[in-house]
């Protein structure tokens, strides 16, 4: 059971996406795990053949408990998932999927398997040995699709909220029929799930957030800085950038804010990393967590890795992607760990400035309020311009205010310079 954040103690295995005998490659998604916060797709960190599944779906186990045994060829190793090592998460990065080695050919002697077929089979958890090939020994994608019902049901789409309601009511979600998108089981499908039930229940996500925030305020001596930025040039440049683009290709201000933080964190790298055992550990790249508020309450902080290397359009695509998947409960394990700095934005709720609480073991969180028209002095005249207040909450154990000020000034300068962001 991998640790998917500093605040995670245990997780529940929802389903296996592989079966014994399947060949897996480092980075493949092999299981779905439900944490206190959300459903997460778990990636494997070994390459080899699944020798044994050690945990049954529906079982809750502690972080570090072996989930499966993977035979990597010479020696059998037990996959515990990555050890929680804040600040040095390079090993948690999914790697490009190499073409599986010769072993599938050995396992399925005499059969012709295209990489697509192997991928489909792996994704659907089909044991290729049980698929009936065409007379010439070939297995086609259609054969894989046909083998699905016989082999195992595909993963049920269940919203995290519905799953929680079902769990609280001791209802087996597999017995429910879904009325949500693509037949997903949503809250209204769970019998007796009166929205905002009057009974007091413990909300696991609330508990997880509470624990993290308690730890942060107990351990981290925060200091706070704020800067108000004239955004006239950037707002205008962004409108020009989006003009004539289809909605899919438009960039939101939130993406430029995230990019400004990533670029500043690369430059002032004392803000980018973790505080571990009394010392600052610099990040192995600029990996920016972004706070996503979930419908119905709660937060997730998916990570955009190497955010400083993405241009504005790429940043927007990454942001849109993780926000959408966070809300759908489809984030991957590697996307919830390894952040080196966090961005939070409450501007759309009419907030002018937000002073964040640092997510341990990180050392900084940058907060953005909304655009507010304020009088500013431009070329000696007082004019009304859209302005933005950006704040920094930083760990005083790791840095002093002067470094924080330098970092925040850099963020502000970038926000004023659309040509460096777009």
């Amino acid at each position, binding site marked *: 059971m991998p640790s998917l954040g500093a605040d995670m103690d245990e997780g529940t295995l929802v389903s296996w996406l592989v079966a014994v005998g399947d060949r897996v490659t480092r980075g493949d998604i092999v299981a779905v795990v439900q944490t206190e916060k959300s459903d997460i797709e778990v990636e494997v960190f070994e390459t080899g053949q699944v020798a044994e599944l050690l945990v049954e779906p529906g079982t809750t186990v502690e972080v570090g408990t072996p989930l499966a045994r993977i035979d990597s060829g010479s020696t059998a190793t037990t996959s515990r998932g990555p050890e929680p090592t804040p600040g040095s998460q390079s090993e948690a990065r999914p790697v490009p999927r190499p073409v599986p080695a010769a072993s599938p050919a050995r396992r399925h002697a005499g059969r012709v398997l295209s990489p697509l077929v192997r991928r489909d089979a792996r994704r659907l958890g089909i044991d290729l040995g049980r698929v009936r090939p065409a007379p010439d020994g070939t297995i086609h994608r259609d054969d894989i699709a046909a083998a699905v019902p016989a082999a195992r049901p595909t993963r049920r789409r269940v*919203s995290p909220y519905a799953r929680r309601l079902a769990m609280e009511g001791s209802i087996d979600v597999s017995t429910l029929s879904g009325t*949500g*998108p693509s037949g*997903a089981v*949503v*809250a*209204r499908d769970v019998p007796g799930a009166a929205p905002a039930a009057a009974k007091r229940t413990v909300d696991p996500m609330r508990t997880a957030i509470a624990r993290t925030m308690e730890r942060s305020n107990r351990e981290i001596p925060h200091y706070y800085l704020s800067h108000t930025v004239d955004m006239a040039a950037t707002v205008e440049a962004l*409108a020009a950038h*989006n*003009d*004539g683009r*289809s*909605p*899919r290709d*438009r960039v*939101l*201000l*939130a993406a430029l804010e995230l990019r400004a933080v990533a670029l500043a964190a690369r430059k002032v790298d004392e803000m980018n990393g973790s505080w571990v055992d009394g010392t600052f550990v610099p990040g192995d790249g600029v990996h920016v967590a972004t706070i996503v*508020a979930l*419908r119905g309450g709660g937060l997730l902080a998916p990570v955009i890795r190497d955010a400083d290397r993405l241009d504005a359009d790429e940043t927007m695509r990454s*942001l*849109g992607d993780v*926000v*959408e998947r966070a809300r759908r409960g489809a984030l991957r394990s590697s996307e919830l760990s390894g952040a080196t700095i966090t961005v939070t934005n409450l501007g*759309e709720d009419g907030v002018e400035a937000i002073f964040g609480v640092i997510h341990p073991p990180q050392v900084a969180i940058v907060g953005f309020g909304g655009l507010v028209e304020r009088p500013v002095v431009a070329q000696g005249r007082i004019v009304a311009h859209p302005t933005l207040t950006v704040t920094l909450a930083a760990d005083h154990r790791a840095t002093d205010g002067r470094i924080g000020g330098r970092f925040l000034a850099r963020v502000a300068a970038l926000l004023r310079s659309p040509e460096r962001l777009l």
Partner: protein
Amino acid sequence: MTNDEARQLLGEVLGRIAPGTDLDEIDPAELLSDELDLDSMDLLSMLELLHERTGLELPETDAPKLRTLDDAVEYLVLRSG
């Protein structure tokens, strides 16, 4: 596109963004963002889905004309001819 068709389209699109959405339960004169707890990313997704389904261009400058259910229905009926 008729009023009913526009409303049905919006129901489908908003249901994909905020699962469980029931248009009968929201105040059509209030901001969709408030009624359905949508943020700017959701509103952009709404434009994207409406663009995909109708082929309408939906420039960013028109976004303010789609802020309430009533406004959005009126806009779609008008623009789709």
